[in-house]
């Protein structure tokens, strides 16, 4: 495939090419389909792709453009969806057997916004079942493989969304991040992934895992592209009570403004044991770079860091146990053929329909909420969550953003952690507290390990300060563009 193929371009470049008339949306979409046909058997990022529908959308975009009626810079650019984001008349499985035959009768708000912007919404991307996991090994439809090394996991839960971008199957995708599910797979696959501030992007149409933590966000090869996608999907939504009524800045325009050097905080609790040496070295280079362009760095402390994993696994599982109760075999979910009475319909349908990790978390969550344990677990976790948030507030009085690795290690091998839930949970140690505090975080690729696996850095920003966070991330990314490196497939 020639390097001039649309699949090797960023969304920003494709947008310019479309505007310049050097390429059509049908060309781009067809190239994407060809690429999926060529590599997805190895990568398995896609659970489903409605090629005909994608080409129809592309054709409609080209027709609009011919009439001078293009809707936005993203008009005609394909965007793939993690299979928990509802697209009207498309399957929505959440990578679970229990939703095997379900199609959504409506569009998620982010999808409606993308369609209104003319984007080609195409493809259902693999994930850990119901977004529970850090490796995409928990998909009922088989794991996604890391395009950089097919023996390794792509991270998770949005492993399909990160791998699809890394494998150049689609220039942009959306994922969801509850404890790191966008940033960690972005890091492991060498692409950009961003979790916006809680409330910045509507959750309407996102099959919920943990309502108070879930947030939809973009995957792309550059920070510039992430800004382009984020500004389209952000904004207040009257269908989501937790969405925040705030103006959406023009992120891509603000990215072009030259920004003053900023102050970056380095939390000492993150730079302790458990961090891979190569990851450490890579982050040190990032720190050096920022200093070289006039940034200040500063050691800061987030003393409640070690609380975040236990707090997260109480709150997230509690909410999940209730959110997933609706998958019951009664109406739209698969019903067990062995069910003989009403209790059976629930017990057997859920028993057969859910995978082990989903069951584990539902049981954990139900336990944390049960009478007599609520105060000791759920209520205490909520109090600790407040402390974690306050820790961040204190640090942000002194710094503009916090810099950490995204994941303690590069991508690990299949099966390496899947037998040990705790070690799997620890791979989210740097990302989880951001969700608990509701803050925006972005993972930017910052190099390859000696074995050729991507390493990512994480920048955490102040609430609703996406614009600054993107500028800081871009200050590094535009000079390095690690995300533009293409794995050999």
């Amino acid at each position, binding site marked *: 495939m020639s390097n001039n193929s649309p699949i090797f371009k960023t969304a920003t470049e494709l947008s310019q090419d479309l505007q310049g008339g050097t390429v059509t949306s049908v060309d781009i979409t067809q190239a994407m389909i060809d690429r999926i046909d060529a590599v997805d058997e190895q990568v398995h990022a896609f659970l489903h792709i409605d090629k005909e529908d994608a080409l129809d959308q592309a054709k409609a975009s080209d027709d609009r453009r011919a009439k001078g009626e293009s809707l936005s810079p993203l008009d005609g650019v394909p965007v793939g969806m993690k299979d*928990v*984001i*509802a697209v009207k008349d498309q399957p*929505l499985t*959440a990578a679970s057997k229990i*939703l095997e035959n*379900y199609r*959504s*009768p*409506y569009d*998620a708000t982010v999808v409606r916004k993308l369609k209104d912007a003319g984007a080609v919404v195409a493809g259902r991307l693999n994930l850990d079942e119901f977004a529970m996991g850090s490796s995409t090994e928990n998909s009922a439809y088989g794991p996604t493989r890391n395009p950089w090394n097919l023996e390794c996991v792509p991270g998770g839960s949005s492993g399909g969304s990160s791998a699809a971008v890394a494998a150049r199957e689609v220039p942009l995708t959306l994922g969801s991040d509850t404890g790191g599910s966008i940033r960690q797979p972005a890091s492991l696959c060498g692409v950009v992934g961003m979790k916006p501030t809680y409330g910045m992007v509507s*959750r*309407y*149409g*996102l*099959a*919920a895992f*943990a*309502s*108070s933590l879930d947030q939809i966000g973009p995957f792309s090869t550059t920070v510039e592209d992430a800004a382009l996608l984020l500004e389209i999907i952000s904004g207040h939504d*009257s*269908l*989501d*009570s*937790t969405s925040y009524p705030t103006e959406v800045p023009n992120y891509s325009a603000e990215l072009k403004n030259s920004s003053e050097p900023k102050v970056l905080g380095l939390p000492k609790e993150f730079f302790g044991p458990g961090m891979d040496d190569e990851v450490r070295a890579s982050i040190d280079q990032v720190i050096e770079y920022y200093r070289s362009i006039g940034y200040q760095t500063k050691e800061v402390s987030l003393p409640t860091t070690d609380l975040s994993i236990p707090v997260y696994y109480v709150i997230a599982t*509690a*909410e999940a*146990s*209730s959110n997933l*109760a*609706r998958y*019951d075999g*009664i*109406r*739209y979910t698969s019903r067990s053929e062995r069910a003989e009475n*009403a209790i059976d319909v*629930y017990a057997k349908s859920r028993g057969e329909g859910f995978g082990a990790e989903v069951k584990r978390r539902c049981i954990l969550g*139900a336990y944390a*909420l*049960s*009478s007599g344990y*609520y105060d000791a677990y*759920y209520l205490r976790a909520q109090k600790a969550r407040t402390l974690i948030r306050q820790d961040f507030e204190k640090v942000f009085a002194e710094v503009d953003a916090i810099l950490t690795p995204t994941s303690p290690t590069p991508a690990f091998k299949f099966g390496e952690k899947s037998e040990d839930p705790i070690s799997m949970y620890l791979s989210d140690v740097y990302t989880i507290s951001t969700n608990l505090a509701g803050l925006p975080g972005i993972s930017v690729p910052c190099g390859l390990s000696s074995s050729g696996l991507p390493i990512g850095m994480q920048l955490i920003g102040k609430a609703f300060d996406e614009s600054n966070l993107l500028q800081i991330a871009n200050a590094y990314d535009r000079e390095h563009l690690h995300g533009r490196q293409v794995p050999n497939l």
Partner: protein
Amino acid sequence: MEYEAVIGLEVHVQLDTNSKMFTRVGTGFGQPPNSLTDPVVLGLPGALPVMNEEAIEKSIKVGLLLDCKIAEVCKWDRKNYFYPDMPKNYQISQYDQPICEGGQVEIEMPGENPSKMGPHRMVELTRIHLEEDVGKLTHYEQDSLVDYNRAGCPLLEIVSEPDMHSPDEVFAYLTSLRNSLVAAGISACDMEKGQLRCDANISVRPRGETKLGTKVELKNLNTISGVRNGVEYEIRRQIRAIEEGTPIIQETRRWNPDQKYTTPMRTKEMAHDYRYFPDPDLMPVKIDQTWIDRVRTGLPEKPFDKQRRYQKDMNLPYSITSALCGDHLLCAYFEEASEMAKSAGKVANWVVNDLLRELSQANKVDEFAEEETEKITPQSCAVSPQMLAELVNLIEDGKLTNNVAKELFPEMFATGKSATELAKEKGLDQQSDDSEIEGICKEAIANDPDAAEKFRGGKEGAINALKGAVMKATRGQANPKVVDDILRRLLS
């Protein structure tokens, strides 16, 4: 031994709102099954609830009406349980912070006889909370069907203290509560449509004992008389059990209205753990004083206050006010008509006797009717308050006799024609055209000079013969007083 029953009620009232509690879908009774649904009602993946402000406002209104303390923050909890009546398998409700706390409901017990006012007292409330209603299940031999039209409708749960002691008090409480809520436009409170539902917590103890007995929760009380009968039966059952030495177990029992007894549903050991926790999809709603004050200005007069006002200020007897004040539409009609009429008392009589009679006849349920017909209300009936006021004024002015008016009223109700119009049509209007009557009087005097002479001679009673002749000639339509005046003038 004498026993005392202790009863607390949990009353569920469906709020009459345009849309459901957490989504834009409309509400309504009698629609095709599952037509009032959307992704939120059906709990589809990704659907999220958004609070209906009207439901909060109506709940505040109820709280103010019943003298409750209104919460500063309206917060939501999830009640988790698996049952097909709730597609999400959790119900959005309020657990530890109900929208209203405390409060009371004024009740009236039966008097010595229907024309005597009975004793009044306050029944204390514990709390009122808002939640979403669940769907309706219909069980068949092999299958069960579920209709989610009702699911997600705003439902208010009004919990009383264990503060009632007899089926009569329970009946009085429900009646009073329903009258207040209907009058305030909160709900139509039709038990047959499930707009008002009631569970009762019942225990008995030896009279004088202060400790409460073991309580039994009674369900399936679907009509007001069902509540009274069910409670009465359950009290007797418990007393009998105690006297037989059988311990009462804490359980939920079901009232079987056809067989008229209660049967166990589940015991305390089988009680659910609902795993309540704050709903992370909904932000708490602040209820500030400005909002409360605004709702307060729209508050209607309480039915019992209205009744006291009618008795005190308008001098209406209890038998009339008790018939009026159970129905706020009747009261509104009465007040409108009485403002235009020369006698409020007469209007009240007409409303309570004639209008009510015609309405109840018109609204007689046709059991074989295929569709439910719209009920005729005082406001929608053919006799407007203006027309009734006119009728009363015609009588007061001596232009129509009471008997004629009584005859005309059903026709007014049936045709929508005014009293004047009908009387004219039928030639029934009391002749008040003095010159015409004067002519007839002159004729009567000419026809009976003897009587005229006797009257002039001081025999007072002689005028009656002349009056009789005039009335006969006018077929009774002349106003006797007018005739009397004219005859006296002519004979003087």
